[in-house]
């Protein structure tokens, strides 16, 4: 088991899409982009499950997963090795994700159509920070501070 550092929260607000890699039971790999990895507590993260897809299917057959999150402020990247633990359909984590999805869905006229099926909870197995070479940040990057 590993513990998520405080500074990783900035990379878990969905500013820069994350990538998740899983494997089917037969070993066929699958990599996909996801909009957000949600911070649950120092030892858990959540992925939202709206549509049944390969990621959802794979982790239920083979719980190992790898995600990659990036801080929009520093471009620091982390590899998180995860293990699918369980799916929640109620409770604090589910409600928080569900509210966000409902809010956004209503903004594009998909209220009641685009819905959260479950909040998939993963245990954090390991955290590796990949500090990249510092480069001047382009203007599009949110430098943080002020609002």
């Amino acid at each position, binding site marked *: 088991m590993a513990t998520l550092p405080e500074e990783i929260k900035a990379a878990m*607000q969905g500013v820069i*899409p994350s990538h998740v890699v899983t494997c089917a039971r037969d070993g066929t790999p699958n990599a996909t982009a996801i909009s957000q990895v949600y911070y649950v507590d120092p030892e858990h993260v959540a992925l939202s499950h709206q549509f049944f897809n390969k990621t959802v299917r794979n982790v239920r057959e083979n719980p190992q997963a790898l995600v990659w999150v990036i801080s929009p402020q520093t471009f620091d990247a982390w590899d998180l090795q995860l293990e699918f633990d369980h799916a929640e359909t109620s409770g604090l984590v589910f409600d928080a994700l569900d509210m966000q999805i409902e809010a956004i869905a209503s*903004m594009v006229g*998909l209220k009641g159509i685009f819905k959260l099926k479950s909040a998939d909870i993963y245990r954090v197995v390991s955290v590796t920070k990949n500090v990249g070479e510092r480069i001047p940040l382009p203007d599009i990057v*949110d430098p943080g501070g002020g609002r």
Partner: protein
Amino acid sequence: MTAERQDTQPLREQIAKNQQTIDRLNRDLARVSNEVRIIQQITREITSTLDLDEVLGIVLRAMERVLGFNHSMILLTNLAADRLRLAASRGYEPSGVGADIALGEGVIGVVASRRKMMRMGNIGASVAYLRSVRARLEAAGEVAPGSNAATLPGLPGAQSQLALPLLVKDRLVGVLAVESPKPTAFDELDEIILGIVGNQAATAIDNARTYQMVENLSRLKRFFSPQLAEAIVTGGTDDPLKTHRREVTVVFLDLRGFTAFAETADPEEVMGVLREYHGEMGKLILAHEGTLERFTGDGMMIFFNDPVLVDDAPERAVRMAVAMRDRVAALTGRWRKRGYDLALGVGIAQGYATIGAIGFEGRWDYGAIGTVTNLAARLCGEAQPGQILLSARVASGVEDLVETEEVGVLALKGFARPVPAFNLLRLKPPA
């Protein structure tokens, strides 16, 4: 590098790291204690007034000056608690005040329906993603094309929103929201601080609203039915005391023979007759949803289509007038036995009037001013005992409903030209 230095290297790194953590914690602590002081100050300010606009102003000013949120708004629930109305904002041009949203729509609407705080970043990308999902669903025929997207007040390009429900016990009072064009403008500490301010604000807003409601209610109940007064107070309709212009149907009535009666009868007798008459007329006014503008002894002026809009104002006016004539006929039967010869005269006219609060501080009346009120009064003055005189406008508006007869043109005081008038005979039997 010596062996000793190699040993102490990790230790030194650890110390440096610890120092960084301590510095960060100190910074957080300084921020928190500063903000706690600010919160105490805001609390003192908002609990020192019962003026709703002032309370809202204090909260929003504090959002900007003290907490650094440049765009903030407060939305309040309506009576049914199924919609929110933007009551005050800061950092928006135009202010957007008056905009309304349904519960469950957008970040603010969902916060209201779930009664839970929500902090959301990177809204633009989420919306863009869902638009692409929508396009795919439309292509697959799973969603009808077109837009049923909610239109929401706020910054057109808001990327971050933090919204919290304003709750008093479990009752939703409204929503306090801050937003930013930056994708990650708000953090967990902002949630905590906004939560504390929000609790204080909810109570202060609720107290101010209750106070305002009681004040308005007592003011409005003098003019309107209790139901209407409550509807106005709770925001169901615009404040009718604001001056406005509207087409109304005006009914004037008084008792023929009342002056002579008042001169000869005992004062107690006069007041008794008036109370009986006012009581009966009052019931009929309420039943037809008329607005009683004033009593003057035996005279009354009632109008229709303000502040409650009705599409059958002339019809209501003539139905009420006929009911009043019937009712007074029953009363005069009794009065005659006691020796009083009284009968009702009514005049009805339709036209535009300027309506609103008339008077001075301490003595306001709700009044309508315009030719239409003069015409109704003059027609009433011309009416024979038991007669209901209609202006040409009213007569043509209700020709399918009542039988009338022309009484010719009348030369009325204040009217340059003679005015045609019609005597209302009876309601036509239902077809």
